[in-house]
Every structure is written in C-alpha cells, then in structure tokens.
C-alpha cells in the first residue's frame, strides 16, 4: 500500500508537468518559431530573498522572470533585443546582497533590476544600484525608504499605509462592522500596524476593537480568539504573517470564524486554501489576481506560466508571481522604446520616465506616470481576492478599488 503511494507520488508530478505543457501549448501561448533577433542583448537582473528567513519568496520566484524572458525571446525579443535574465539570491544576508547587486551590475552588466523581492536588505543593495544609475523596476513596494527613491519604479500597489487603508476599506466594502488585527510583535512593520490600522478602520466607518500582539511560537491562540469574540470583531487583519492555520484552528474551536483580511498575496498560500478552519478570507492584493484570464495580458501570464514554469501556479508563489510579472511587463514597455544598439541603464531610466498614464496592458493597479526629477506618486489602487469554501475567487476581476493617495 505504502509502496503504491510512493510510486504515485513519483509519477504524479511528471504527469502534471506533461499535462500542463500540453494544455499550455494548446492555450494560445506564443509560437515557438521566433523571428530573428536583430539587435543586441538586454541583460536584466533580479535580486530576491529566495532561501533566507522569510517564506513568501522562494526559488519559484525566479522562474517567473525566466519564463517571461523565454516567452519574449520566443517572439523575437523586445523590439529586436534578446532578453537575458540573471538572478541572485541574497539569502536575506546584507553581505550577500551587496555581493549580488555588484555582480549583477558590474559582472553581468544588468541594465535594470526587475521584480526584486529583497526589501529586507534594500538599505545595502539599493544605494549601489542607485549610484550605478541602474533603475529598479517593480517587485515588492513595502518599504517607505525604498519607495521614496526616484530610482525605484514601483508598478504595483504601494503597500505602506496604502496597504492598510486598502485592507480596512475592503473589510468595510465587504460588509464588515468591527475590525481588529493580530500582529507578530517581534516583526518590524507588523508591530507598527496596530495604531495605523485603528485610524484606517475608523476612516472607513469600521469600529476598531483590538490590536493583539502574538508570536509564531505560541502553542495556543485561544486567548486572542476569545478576546476578538468577546468584542464582537467581524474582521481580523493578519499582519506579519502569524501562522493563520494555528490561529484559525483555535478560533474555530471557540466557534469563532471571522473574516480574515490581509494585504498582498499570502491569501493564496496552499496551507490557507486547504485549511478546514479558514472559512473565509479576503485580501486587498497589490498586483493583478493570478486567476484572471479576462484580458489578453492576464491570459498571456497564465499561458506562459503553464508553458515555462508550471510549478509556480501550484506553489505558494502563485499570487506574488504576478508582482514579478508586472515588473517584467513594465520593463518590456520601457525596452520597447529603446533604439540604441547596446542600450544602457540610463536609456532604460529615460524610457521609464516617459511613462504617462501607462496601464501595462491593464496589469497596473492604476495608470502610472513617471517624470524625471519628480517624486513618484504612490499607487493606491488594488485588486481583490476572496477565499471562500477553500476556493479562491476574484470578485471584481481586473477592476481595482482605490483609496486616497497618501
């Protein structure tokens, strides 16, 4: 019996990969026959914390960019330029981050850093990219210092106060009355959320109940659950990714199942999807929903992933993957404006600074404008995703909701 299961475990992934490739091939992905590339090569770099301390990015993350590059190159490149993707895992280690960015810029001659997921080490690597004049396009926009940098081109929702406002508004829009949050007290950013969220929820007519500090190492969250239950909290925000399955289990035991609200893509984690105790969760997501196939741009994402990186859409990265993809599309748009035989980082920066109400084929949360020498505006619109009955849906499709810019 055990042996049969073992065999099944070995065969199943192969079957899935084969099937996925087959489906993707028939789903209208780009033709394999590529027109000849006539110009030079565009090397782009990505720096991410793929194997460090945080769980959201992982090695799957790099596959998104590589799949995009394969797709682009299979179409003859961008405006005749072949795209080469170089990736670097900084392991959340500042020394590695410094080494990685220098290698990308000095050795690999990357002309842009695209879809970074290394906010924790940004204070080390970003100044190096800045001083080299290499633009940073997209990726996680979580850090206020990072977002204030004019060399950083955020193309998804600016997830600082905007993210918290988005969560509160979404909770209110979805019928919530009383809002509370639970946060990992040892994690910076999460710890800041309680007072900010109090203001945000009041702004959208919600009554703020409790802000409860927790730790991922707690054996029991019942006290947290009962506190929320006693205060009649209808929506509980999750900040700093506490182990929601454990929290939901203890709350479920108390007959308490609030709507779990979060920002960004953790709602798509497989552990949330399968968990019998997570009855309903809503999320203001900062890049387009991976489920969407309503417009050509999202169809392209899905077909390329299925063709070149099928494991991404089954992993916990399936929603964060769209942040990376959006960054890649932003680069694609900028690169389409390049004409020099060997474009430089300065050329890419100049091209980015021509973005004027750029929608990225509908993938951007709001039209984006970059002007040289001007601070970049926050992107304060966001998409919506709902988890109900262990199924993810996108109730508003590609329609975004906006909160006033901060």
């Amino acid at each position, binding site marked *: 019996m055990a042996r049969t299961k073992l065999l099944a475990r070995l065969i199943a992934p192969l079957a899935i990969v084969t099937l996925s490739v087959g489906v993707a091939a028939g789903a209208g992905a780009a033709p394999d026959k590529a027109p000849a590339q006539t110009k030079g090569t565009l090397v782009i770099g990505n720096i991410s914390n793929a194997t460090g301390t945080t769980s959201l990015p992982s090695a799957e993350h790099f596959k998104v960019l590589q799949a995009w590059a394969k797709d682009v190159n299979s179409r003859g490149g961008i405006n005749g330029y072949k795209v080469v993707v170089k990736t670097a895992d900084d392991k959340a280690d500042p020394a590695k981050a410094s080494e990685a960015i220098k290698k990308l810029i000095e050795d690999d001659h990357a002309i842009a850093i695209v879809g970074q997921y290394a906010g924790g080490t940004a204070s080390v690597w970003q100044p190096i990219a800045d001083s080299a004049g290499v633009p940073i396009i997209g990726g996680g926009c979580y850090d206020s210092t990072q977002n204030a940098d004019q060399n950083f081109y955020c193309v998804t929702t600016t997830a600082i106060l905007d993210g918290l406002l988005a969560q509160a508004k979404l909770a209110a829009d979805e019928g919530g009355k009383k809002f509370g949050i639970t946060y990992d007290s040892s994690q910076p950013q999460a710890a800041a959320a309680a007072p900010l969220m109090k203001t945000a929820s009041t702004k959208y007519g919600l009554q703020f109940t409790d802000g409860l*500090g927790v730790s991922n190492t707690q*054996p029991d969250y019942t006290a947290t659950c009962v506190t929320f239950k006693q205060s009649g909290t209808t929506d509980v925000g999750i900040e700093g990714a506490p182990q929601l399955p454990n929290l939901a289990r203890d709350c479920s035991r108390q007959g308490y199942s609030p709507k779990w609200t979060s920002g960004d893509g953790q709602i798509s984690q497989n552990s949330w999807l399968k968990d019998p105790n997570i009855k309903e969760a809503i999320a203001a997501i900062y890049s387009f929903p991976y489920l969407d196939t309503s417009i050509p741009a999202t169809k392209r994402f899905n077909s390329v992933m299925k063709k070149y990186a099928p494991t991404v859409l089954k992993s916990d990265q399936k929603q964060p993957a769209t942040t990376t993809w959006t960054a890649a599309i932003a680069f694609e748009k900028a690169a389409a404006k390049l004409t020099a035989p060997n474009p430089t980082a300065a050329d890419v920066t100049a091209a980015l600074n021509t973005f004027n109400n750029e929608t990225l084929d509908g993938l951007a949360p709001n039209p984006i404008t970059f002007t040289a020498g001007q601070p970049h505006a926050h992107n304060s619109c966001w998409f919506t995703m709902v988890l109900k009955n262990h199924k993810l849906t996108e109730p508003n499709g590609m329609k975004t909701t906006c909160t006033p810019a901060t």
Partner: protein
Amino acid sequence: MQDFLPFIVIGLTAGSVYGLAGTGLVLTYKTSGVFNFAYGAIAAVAAYVFYWLHVQEGVSWQLAALLCLVVLGPVMGLVLELLTRMLSEVGTQYQIVGMIGLTLGIAGVLTLWGNSWSDPGQYVQFPDFLPTETFTVFDVNVGYNQLITMLIALVSAVGLYLFFRWSRLGVGMRAVVDNPDLVNISGTNPLRVRRWAWVIGTTFAAMSGLLLGPTIGLSVTLLILLVVQAFGAAAVGYFSNLPLTYVGGLLIGIAAALSTKYINDITWLGGLPPSIPFIVLFVALLVTPRRLLALRRSPPPPPPHASYRAPARVNLLAAAVLVAVLLFIPDLVGVKLAAWTVALLYVILFLSLGLLVRTSGQVSLAQLGLAAVGAAAFGHLVSDHHVPWLPAVLLAGLIAVPIGAIIAIPAIRLSGVFLALATLGFGIMLEQMFYTQDIMFGPTSAGVHATRPSIGQSDRGYYYVVLAAAVLCSIFVVALTRGRLGRLLRALSDSPLALDTQGTTINLTRLLVFCISAFLAGIFGALYGGFVGSINGTSFPAFNSLTILALVVLVLGGAPWYAITAAAAFQLIPAYVTATDINTYLQILFGFAVIGVGLQARHPASVPVPLQRLLDRLGGRRPEAPAAPAGPVVAVVPEPLPAAVTAGDGGLEIVDLTVRYGGLVAVDGLSLGAPLGRITGLIGPNGAGKTTTFNACSGLVRPTRGRILLHDHDITRAGAAARARRGLGRTFQKSELWPSLTVEENVALGREAAMAGGNVFHQLTARPGDGEVVHESVDHAIALTGIDALRERQAARLTSGERRLVELARSLAGSFDVILLDEPSSGLDPTETERFGGVLQHVVAERGIGLLLVEHDMALVMEVCEHIYVMDFGRPLFDGSPEEVRASELVQAAYLGSDEVEAVVAAEPAGSL
C-alpha cells in the same frame, strides 16, 4: 467576572503545554544532572519521524506513535546517555555547548529532511491524531485533545514526583546524580540507572513532540522555540520540583492569556504576552534562592590540559602579515568585499564573546541582544542627535554597558547552565519586547538610519574603517588578556574560589568582564549598522546567539586568532561556497563539531609539536628544560622580605564558632587562637569539622553563631576577598591552583589578587610599582619553596606534590600574616614533608606570621606546631602542647574510636576547652 474566567480556563489549557515540556526538562535534569538544551530538538526528531511514518508512508498513527515512543525514544536515550556521560568529564561549559551543538545539528538535519517534503518555509500541518471534539467550561470550548495533553502533563508531574519519592528505581535515579559511587556500593549499577533515566527522559521528550506537533505545525525551529518557552516553567520549579514546574507552566499560561485580554490597548506592551515565558525565566533565576538552584552535579574542574602559546615575536609577525594581506583584500576579492567587511565586523563580536567564554569561563546567550542595543543607540545618536560618527560609535558601546551589567546580575548569582538560561531568556525577551519599540529600532522595517564616516562612504573606504576597528579591538583584547585583568579572568575561569580567597572581589571581576564584553558587542552593533545603512531587529535574531556561542568554543587559538578563525568560518565560507543550503550545512557542521570538541576537551587539538618547535625557534624561545625532579625545598634561603606583621597584631581568633548545615552541626562551639609568630595545629579525625572551620574563617561558610577575629577586628561578616585583603590567606585540602596559568603566574597572583582587590581600576591594570613588588614576592616565595625549575611550567602539568608546593608558594607570595594550611603535605614524600616543615618554621621565624595547620601527618604536626587543638564530631576535644596532646588518652581515643570520647564530648559545655 464573566469576561475574566474564560481566560483562566484558556491559561490553564495553554499553560499545560508549557507544563508538559517543562516536566520533561526537569525530569531529564533531575535524573542526569545535565540540563538538556536539546530537549526541543529531540522532541522535534520524534515529531518528524512520526510525520514521515504516518503522513508520508501511510503508517497508522497508532503504530507510528508506538514506534516513536517504544523504539525511537529509548534509542535516543541510550545515545544521549553515552554522549552526556562522555561530556560530563569535561566541565559544565562543554556540557552546555555540547547540548547546544546537538540542538543546532539536529535542527539542521531536520530542516533538510523537511525540505524534501515541502518548500522551505512553507507551513506544514501536523496531523491532529487525538480527538478534536470539544466541551465547554466557562464559555470556553476545550478540545479533548487539549484535555488529554493537560491530563498527561498533570499525571506525569504527579506520577513522576511519586516515582522519585517512593520507588527504588526513582530514588536510585536521583541518587546516581548526587553520588554514583554510593549507589554502586549499595548494590545498584549506576550505569543501568542512568540509562533508564535517559530512556525515560527522551521517551517523554518524544511524547512531547507528538503532543506539541499539532499545536504549531511541523517546524523544527518552532518546536525548539516552544520548548525554550517551557524553560520558564522549569525555572519556577527551580529545575527540580516536578509539581511546581507544572504549576509554573499553568501560571505562565494564565498570565499570557490575561495580558492578551487586558493590555491590548497599550501598544508598546504588544510584545508582552508572547514574552511572558522569557520574563518568568529571567526573573525566576534572579530571585530563586541560590541553594535551590544548586547544581545537581558538581561541575568537574576544567580539563587540565597543556596549551601552547606561540612566542610573542611570532604572534606579532603573523599579525603583521595578516594585516598586510587584509590591506590588499579590496583589490583581490572584487564583489565579495562586503563579505570580508562583515567577517571583520564579526571578529569584534567574537572577541566580545570570547572574553566571556574563553577567557573567564562564563556563558552568554545574549550577545546579539547587546549588539542590537549598540546598533540602535548608534542609529539614534547619528540620526536623531547628529552626534559625529566616532563619538557615536564609542557612545553606542557605552550604552550597551549597563545592559551588560544587567546580564551580569545572574552571572554573579549563578553559573554554568543557569547563567546560560538566564542570558538566553534575557536575549529573547529583549527581541520580543523591545526591538520594535521606538527606543530601539521602532516598529517599521525601515528601522533606524546609521551612517558611515566621511572616509568610509564607499564600500572600499568602509572596509578600511572596519579593518582599523577590528585591529584596534584585537589589540585592546590582547592587551587586556595579557594584563592584570586577563590573569584575573583566567584565574576566575579555573577556580573562582581560589581567586576569591586570595583577595580579589570576583563579583566585580564578573561585572567588569560583562561590561567590557557588552562594550565591544555595542561597537560591533554600531559598525554593523553603518555597513547595513538602515537597521532593524531582524539583523540580530536572539536565537543566533546559540550558533555564535558554538563557534567561539569550536575554534582554536588565543586572542585574537580564535575570533579571526570564527569570523572567517561564519562569514567567508558561505560567501565562497554557493550551495543553496550552505547555511544549513554549516549549522550541522558547527553543531556536531562542537560536540566533538567537547568530547576531546581533555585532549584538545593543539599546534603539532614540530610546528611548535619551529615557531619557538622563530620566536627565539629556548626549549623547555626537561622535567626536573622536585627541587630541594628551601634550596636557597632568600634575603628576608620586610616583616608582614606589625607589633600589636593579634593573629586569628575564633570565638564560640558554630556552623550548622540544616539539621547537621558541623562545628559546635569551637574557640581557638592562632597568634602571630606561631604554628598552631588543628587536628581531628575525618569529619571532625576542621575544613568547615577553615571555610568559616575564610568567609566561605556563614557561621550560625560565634565570631571570627583577625588582629582583634571582627571579620565575621566580611566577604572572603575582604578577609584575604586584611591578611588572611589559605590553601585548600583539594588543591585549588589555576591550571591554565604557569607556576610563576599562579604564585604572582597570590600577591596580585589582593592588589586588584575590589577596585575597578586596580582590577583593570596595575599601579606603578606593583610589578616590582609582585616580582620580588614571587622570587622570594619560589626560592623558599624550591620550585624555581617549575616557574614556566603550566600548573596543569604538575604532580600532586608539586601542586602542594606551588599552592604554598602562592600563599607565601601574598601579603598574608595568618595563613590557614589545609593538609598541605598530602602528596609529598617523607623527605619533602620534612623539608616542608622546615619551610614553615623558617617563614614564621622570618616574618613573624601565624600559621594554622590542619594536617593528618602527625609527625609533621608534632614537629612544627607549638600548640595544637583537637576536634571531634565538630566539637573541641582538647588543646595543649604537642607533648600534652601526644600524652592525652582522650586524643588517642578520638583517633582510635572510643565510647569515652563521645561521652566526654557530650558532657563538655561547648567552647569550654
């Protein structure tokens, strides 16, 4: 009340988890004498094996659990028994670090194993195999699985309590820790008992793993951290009392639940509920009476091993070459410059920890917390207060000093495992509660902004700044370890008791080294901040202090070489080996290697002999003379030193001394005098109370009644060091030399310890003229005792007879005018003993000092003593001249055993003789 009661119920259910883990910890400690830091890791092994069998391989949960509890638990127990038995020979520090190494190693292996089932970092649900239906108590739904855990914890605590109290095996398990030899004599095989103890302990850990797994999911890190939280419960039960440990777990659970409910409006206290176990741990260790925290098994002395120290010239040359190479690194390593910069930074951190661990023999698991304090302080100073860079770096170090002083409080009260636990609790508490406060890094990931100096704005420039800092810190630490404080610290590491009784206030020494260590850690934090740019708490995870500690024990060499090696291993290996899981592999390597180092501690790796010879030749050091036979005692009668005694001093006087240990009266109404210019004997059969009397005189035991007078001053309440500084010296029945120091250093400290005394500045460095006084005293004492040929020899390499002579020389070098000699002739042959007696008479005649001699060699006593006191059963029996003692039938009977003696002792009023 309706809102309140549910939280009591919640606290009880959550607290049972701490109680369960805490009970297991105490069980192992109680039965093995070894605090099992690896308890969480062992529980995790069982959880992972269960998961693999049940979820991955489809084995039923009953069979999987049975295999874990009946096969895996006992097998792990037998392996651990063997491991800890071997580690028990090498000192507490290696035991602690060995178990921490085991934790790191197991955690690394399980991480790799877990990665084969799921993506790294992904949440993996652990199967909840117990019934999850609920019942309601005060509006709280309690799961039957929780109830089962509660009952198992309760039954275990009570059952094990009864087992230890009433069953033969249980009593044997306790006894085998206290006195294995006695257990053996009573017909019980101590090895068998110890194996049973470990089998039960690890099976309990395995059960904990299976019961705790469902609460937090399959994660080795979380399981280990969960068990660390249970340390608080164990501390409430002072690591010994099982029911109290269970109660402690419940109290922690209730406190955490209530604080969740009632403090949620106070934002800055958001970190309190999850920090409560660590606060309880730290506070419990601070306030629990020391007698309750007595080590279950006395720590063995540090391994006496010969260590090699290269000649100064070679060290200097090597350092110059290394610095020269490091100057060219920016041109050689390209993009890896950052890794080299961070490695140099870590040299400073390892130096700071090395001062504690390697030099003074203390353990700290809060070093990254201190670094975080320095980093945060630096950030605030440069960003908020615009303090210039250099003063800000130095101030950051100074701001970390008071925190170091707080950590030193448990160091003053506790040692070994309890100090390790207290510092671990403090470090985690700091991280949980304060890292995200505005006073430190603030609540956002942007943290605080740190700057670089104007000459170090570029990475290349900052590398040179850090290199300069690392060189300066290295010079500082080398100077410190080679100076007076270094000698004091090494002596403190070898025998704090001897240092205390030679006149150094050792609590001040401990405080001082913790403060200096904190200063260096703060400097590291500040410079690290400058490297990173903007810093937050994620740069200083408290738990990484375990790896740092393991590394600092693992590497070889003296300061600064160990720090350089450790920093290179920690930072440069991962920089150059690019395997995905290199950090996990290194964790496994460091973890298991540190166990190997512990097992080899009595025969540590050292520089190969041919290389030693080469280095000695290069350094101009002459080969050591072959071991000479013990030189003639009083080979040269040196010029007498100025008399230590001034006219009118009265020597030592004991008045009506009584010492009780609980119900046992060790000394009962003893009065005696040991005036100056006389050798006074104190004799009696074994157990008569002679050593207790000495301990009471030198301040190591508090008298129940009576007074101790030195030169007519009442010193009954003075500490041991203060008595030594007033002129009371002593030797010990069981030699208390400092084995890592040379003979000359041992003898010199006999004088220098009192000079250092209780003054911060005098402990740090010698005053002008001190060196000359010490030198003269050493020469004189060495000449008197005839040990000149042994001067350069490390004390660890001496024979027992030589040790006696060195200990005497150390006392003679001190500025003591009354010296208590506790069986000083044991280990000497008859000829040496005779000469030894001559030395004593010579010293008394020359200096006019007083000696009080406890000795079993009656020939020596009768030869040298002018007056003799006889004790038996703790009470004075007789006193008189040697002739009178020799003629006394009472004394003869005492030695031969007689009913008459007991009758006399019982009849005489205390102190009447």
